[in-house]
């Protein structure tokens, strides 16, 4: 995976933690999304939990019978005149796009938000091959100008302050500094409108691919996806295998959950339902639509009963908004394309386990992610699953493995346990003032001295002896 750097998770975390400004921005933004979500659910959707159950059922049914729905989808694509490619990995996907763009004589590309294109590193690839690529989602555009990566799957520039964005615009376009979001947005509108009008191809993601009808559903707020798929004569959809849903009704059902979970909106400003390429009008040529579906390790999950649920994800971002870790360090700390809890469980499957296993340890297992997941992915259990796999593969440090062996020894041998316990109790007075020193922990937090008398000892003295006296 070209766009991933998860090996340095711990170092990145330390770096991000030292940035107090970043933490404040991320906490404020995620808190905003959290409260909007709760407000909408409480005010409008009393049946929220039933909807989640239903969504979970749809997703699990789809992923279990994925091949069936996939075949159905392809048949519909053929009938509807939509061209289709299956890409096994990132480099396949990139070269398919390149070939298409060359064969259509494309020079300029507009892109609407697609995390899959981030996953395959499409922008860098196309730029290396001489294409002009412009991100058109405002957040993505900001990120592209700053030469950064998205830090959130639905709000790519969540980590940036308005001042930073103001400075960025002022520097890049040589305009007077302003940090007013309205003015910055208006400025981006004017620039990007010209990009849209002059683009030869539009690249978008997709939120749902409906097997029953072959409908491509795109959910957005800005209108940039609609422009990207309408103005250019070539529309390329790049998405991943789990976006398939069996029927339109299923898609509408999931649509009830997606924007609410993401931003607290009941529905986004625009939802496009596309079945066929636009037909020619007057002197204009007909449009062409090409769909590229990326696998990149995901089909391994289809066959895995324990971890298939990772593919239920509809990319709402609620798990990261609600994650205390994400809130503290932001998305870049993860070093993965998909940050937050869902990223920590998906990345080891699309990347290698050894490289990205640390992500799964960067969680308190508090379960806030699973609680808000609209399709009820058991995220915290999946985090535990990755940890288990990592230990089975002996990816953990030797010292840790030794510690757990010794720990087990003292836990299963009661005599040894008692001996150690007595030893701790004996040491207790030494630590009364300073507290116990625990490696790593005690640099930041106090830890109390062990008790002078453990509960085991108390029980033996107080209860057992009294019982014996009473019995005599």
């Amino acid at each position, binding site marked *: 995976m070209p766009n991933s750097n998860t090996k340095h998770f711990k170092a990145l975390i330390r770096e991000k933690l030292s940035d107090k400004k970043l933490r404040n921005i991320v906490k404020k933004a995620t808190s905003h999304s959290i409260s909007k979500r709760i407000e909408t659910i409480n005010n409008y959707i009393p049946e929220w939990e039933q909807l989640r159950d239903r969504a979970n059922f749809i997703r699990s049914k789809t992923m279990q019978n994925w091949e069936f729905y996939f075949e159905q989808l392809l048949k519909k694509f053929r009938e509807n005149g939509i061209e289709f490619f299956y890409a096994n990995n990132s480099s396949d996907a990139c070269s398919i796009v390149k070939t298409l763009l060359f064969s259509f004589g494309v020079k300029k590309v507009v892109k609407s938000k697609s995390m899959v294109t981030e996953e395959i590193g499409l922008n860098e690839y196309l730029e290396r091959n001489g294409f002009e690529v412009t991100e058109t989602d405002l957040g993505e555009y900001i990120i592209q100008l700053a030469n950064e990566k998205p830090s959130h799957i639905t709000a790519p520039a969540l980590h940036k302050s308005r001042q930073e964005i103001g400075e960025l615009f002022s520097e890049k376009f040589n305009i007077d500094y302003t940090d007013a979001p309205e003015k910055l947005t208006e400025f981006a509108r004017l620039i990007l409108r010209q990009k849209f009008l002059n683009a030869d191809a539009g690249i978008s993601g997709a939120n749902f691919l409906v097997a029953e009808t072959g409908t491509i559903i795109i959910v957005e707020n800005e209108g940039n996806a609609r422009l990207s798929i309408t103005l250019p004569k070539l529309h390329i959809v790049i998405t991943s295998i789990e976006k398939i849903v069996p029927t339109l009704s299923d898609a509408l059902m999931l649509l009830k959950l997606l924007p609410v979970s993401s931003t607290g909106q009941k529905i986004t400003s625009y939802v496009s339902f596309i079945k066929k390429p636009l037909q020619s009008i007057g002197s204009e040529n007909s449009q062409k639509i090409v769909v590229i579906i990326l696998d990149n390790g995901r089909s391994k999950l289809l066959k895995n009963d324990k971890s298939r649920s990772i593919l239920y994800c509809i990319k709402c971002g609620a798990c990261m908004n609600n994650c205390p870790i994400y809130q*503290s360090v932001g998305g870049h700390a993860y070093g993965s394309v998909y940050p937050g809890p869902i990223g920590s469980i998906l990345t080891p499957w699309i990347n290698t386990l050894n490289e990205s296993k640390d992500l799964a*340890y*960067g969680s308190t297992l508090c379960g806030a992610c699973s609680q808000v997941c609209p399709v009820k992915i058991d995220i915290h259990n999946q985090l535990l699953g990755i940890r288990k796999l990592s230990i089975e593969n002996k990816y953990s440090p030797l010292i840790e493995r030794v510690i757990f062996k010794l720990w087990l020894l003292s836990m*299963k041998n009661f005599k040894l*346990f008692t001996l150690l316990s007595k030893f701790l109790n004996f040491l207790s007075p030494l630590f009364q003032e300073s507290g116990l020193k625990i490696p790593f922990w005690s640099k*930041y937090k106090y830890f109390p001295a062990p008790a002078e008398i453990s509960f085991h000892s108390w029980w033996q003295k107080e209860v057992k002896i009294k019982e014996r006296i009473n019995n005599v």
Partner: protein
Amino acid sequence: MKINLFIPCIVDQFAPKVAISTYKILKKLGCNVDYPFEQTCCGQPAFNTGYHYEARICAERFLKIFANSDYIVSPSGSCVAMVKNFYQELELNPEAKSIYNDLKIKIFELSDFLVNVLKVEDLNANFKAKVTYHDSCHLLRELNILNEPRKLIGSIKGIELIDLNESDRCCGFGGTFSVKFPELSTIITEDKVRNIELSGADYVVANDVSCLLNIQGILKNKNSRIKTLHLAELLAMGIENA
């Protein structure tokens, strides 16, 4: 009806008062309480870190010791969740598996047991203080215990229970997480402590010693006047005061 106390190892060694309080509360309510003496650890630290073999050995040992219990009661949401919900993830031997199937519906966290099994919501306790309550993650999300501790605290005469902002946000402990990522853990705990300080309470109450030790770790370094208190300790002190 005999109750077998399940006292997590961290309580045994670092907060025996919580266990003693649990024992006293149950005794006061007329329960027949026993403490299976050979118990050590339920295996949670190993399980959460991914060491399923080590966790399974602990789990099988635990189940053997607690087999044939009428009820198992523990002053820890997290350790009860380990046994009740997560033992099924371990490849237990058939004997242990059958004990587990029997015990998983007989194991209760203390406040759950008091309110939902013994149907006690008022312990006639008396304690004059301002307290705030932190929802421990496993207690809330694995065991679904939200109102029980609040009911019990609310029944104490003289107590003022103040809502804690973001009460259901993790305190940042997470077991080995706090050792693997100490700086990150500390940042999250500091958020928790800030909210606790904002509440104006004298005590922060929770049902898990691990959360309380973690929160205390920052409070103590800050020389804060706010004290941590396990629900069992609060109830037991209240009963003594009555």
